[in-house]
């Protein structure tokens, strides 16, 4: 019996996993708005919550300071 009889279903399983990931991403709305993400990437993760811009703040500090968005 050739190995192809085993490998082929395995390959299909991998493809199925990719399809499931795609379906999940679509349902989560990942492909709803493809324009804003391209603009958003221009903004680095600067502290959004602080009232003043402090040049000494490190990126990790600001990330901690940022409140987690509530997911629905």
């Amino acid at each position, binding site marked *: 019996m*050739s190995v*192809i*009889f085993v490998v*082929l279903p395995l*390959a*299909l399983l991998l*493809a199925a996993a*990719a*399809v499931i990931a*795609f*379906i999940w991403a*679509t*349902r989560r*709305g990942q*492909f*709803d*708005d493809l*324009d*804003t993400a391209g*603009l*958003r990437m*221009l*903004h680095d993760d*600067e502290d*959004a*919550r*602080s*009232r*003043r*811009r402090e040049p000494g703040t490190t990126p990790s500090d600001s990330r901690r300071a940022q*409140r987690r*968005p*509530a997911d*629905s």
Partner: protein
Amino acid sequence: MAAEPVQPGLSSAAGHSTAAVLCTHCGLPVPAGLVAAGEVEPFCCQGCRTVYGVIRNCGLERYYRLRESVPDAAPQPARTTGRRYDEFDDPVFEQMHVREMPDGCRCVELFVEGMHCGACVWLLERLPVLAPQVIEARVDFRRSLLRVTWDPHAGPLSEVARALDSLGYPPHPARDAAARDWRRREDHRLLIRIGVAGALAGNVMMFAFCLYGGMFTGIEAAFEAYFRWMSMLLGLLSLAWPGSVFFRGAWAAIRTGASHLDLPIAIGLAAGGVAGVVNTALGRGEIYFDSLTMLVFLLLVGRWVQRQQQRRASDAVELLYSLTPSFARRVDADGVRDVPLEAVRPGDLVEARAGDTIPVDGEIESGQSSIDQSLLTGESTPREVCEGDAVSAGTVNLAAAVRIRARATGERSRVGQLMQMVERSARNTAPIVRTADRIARHFTAAMLALAAVTLLGWLRLDASRAVDQAMTLLLVTCPCALGLATPMIVTVAIGRAARRGILIKGGEMLEALSRRGTILLDKTGTVTQGRTTLLDWHGDESIKPLVAAIERHSAHPIARALVAAFPNVRGEEATCVTQFPGGGIEGRVDGRRIEIGSTQFIAERGARWPAWVADAVQRCAAEGRTPVLVAEEGEVRAVAAFGDPLREDARSAVAELRRLGWCVGLLSGDHRDVVASVARSLEIDPHDACGDAAPEQKLATVERRRREGPVVMVGDGVNDAAALAAATVGIAVNGGAEASLSAAHVYLSRPGLAPIVELIRAGRRTLSAIRRSFAVSIAYNAIAAGLAMTGVINPLIAAILMPLSSFTVVSLALAARTFEEPPCP
């Protein structure tokens, strides 16, 4: 405050103009009058000054640096309204627009004005800095939507709205959130189908390559059977899940007796599927699952692309409705409050200030003003109203604040009833049959006939191959190129149209415009500019500055038109100005008594009329214009003629439409004489110019004309909406009412009539592009059919022929010049 000085406007805009002083906020030149010597931070307007202050106070100056990094951000002065947005806290508002999250937070979708670049996205998503109750703000840039999640215990939504307003992004509740949600789920379903179809097609293609390889080099029987069964498994999955849309479409077409392109496609798919399954089971002959799965995938992609483009156009139009005011100023015991329109009940007292749209049907309780009813009735002359007069929702208050006792609101109001008529006529209007669907009937018949011929022919020659060959024929003649080409051509056309300010909600509209028919134009606001303007002046020229000096004291539309027409060069000042509502105005300039008003008013004041005045007044009336007399010291010195001037391009556009073979008519609610005079100046046959038409009559006219051929209705008002919905193609023009936006099939965001000509030309080009691609795809199908009938086709040829034909028609579609590219600025 940040330590370093920020001069963003100066540095970003310094390239194109060095001499002009540029606004610190928006980077546009500051008007000469506002330039103060030695000012470090000049501004072009109060809005920019306010916004700049807010941004600096919150430490968000990064906005300016970001904006410089955005290459093509057009500068735009900030606009703030300074409203209180009380209606955002009203329970009715919450019920309509706000969603409660499981964690107690609330979520609302807002349409924000003024979002124009990547830096705006950054600034808007920093909303929590300005309004601490906001937990998250997410921007959808293409739709100009902002989704705000906030904590209701930390503060009200109106505060958030005020913060947005202070940044120069006036928010509006986004309407139709439920419909948008539903469509989003619909999009998800189609996208998932495409993903699944693509994955299946790719995998089946791999098996097919093995089998094709085996055809030339030989393959072990066990492997061949294995690959064939695997192909069948995935192929059937593709037909049953993503491909089911075509079968459902075909079934619906059969049941309703309509002709639809899905029918021949489904026949082809089914025939290929059956032949494939039989041949797999028998272990002989060809299986076509690679072509089948690829076909399903490509056809779905074609649909997706077209839907996305149409969605863009209808989204844009829909969000324009959000801009129409959704609040009323209700007078409560403790003062005037903004409430959602839906919260106003009959019997409530509401206030309408100058420039406001009147929110309810009712009677004026206090105040005097003049109202513009053109959107509701098509009447171009403003109507004077005072206490006790009835006013309708949807009209615009022009002159002064009035208080109105509401009699009917929402659906009960005149506008609401007209909207119901719009819905009825939209439901009763037969949809346009797409050219592709019309052809589908003949296509199906030809396919089946050829299959029958093949079957019979092969029964005589070689009975064992007869069914096989007939099935193959059905598969290879399946009009996949056709199914792909039309959406592509239409998509390209709609996309190019949108860039030229023409928003088309459905591709079939373009096809419908290619046939000749009747174009009915609304007058007020469509052919004309829709505002009162001074058209003619008979008599003494020297009195003009005096008139302007007096009229500056009035907010009446005629007064404004006069002030706009006569620049006050010498700076005369008027004294003792008295206004007589519904009549005229009186005042003293340079010690001379001047009276300005209607013929009746001047006659009542006892002024002397020279003979030429009576002539001039008569001429005005004959031309459908409103005469206004000016008397100095008891003697009439001049006659001013007012009216609604034609748009600049109206005459050339109408001539051009006629040259293209369309019959042009006027259909207006304005006075018959006015319509006749406009028809004369546009050289329209008086029989085709219909005045005094109520919305019901407009609808009836459109329906009657539709029996003779396609009808294009162009209009802007609520009174046109039902006719727009009933027409073959309804076109709403720039600045129209909400009702006309929702009823129309096409929306022109550019003023003027030139886009209509462009649209009709494009319709023709679109149809000829569709025909061209038909010719090509039918040629391919004929070759394939010939090969299948003679029995020399094999799956490899089919697999090459199919993508080749699709590729050809798609490139033809992309090359089609449906709309001219916009001229370079």
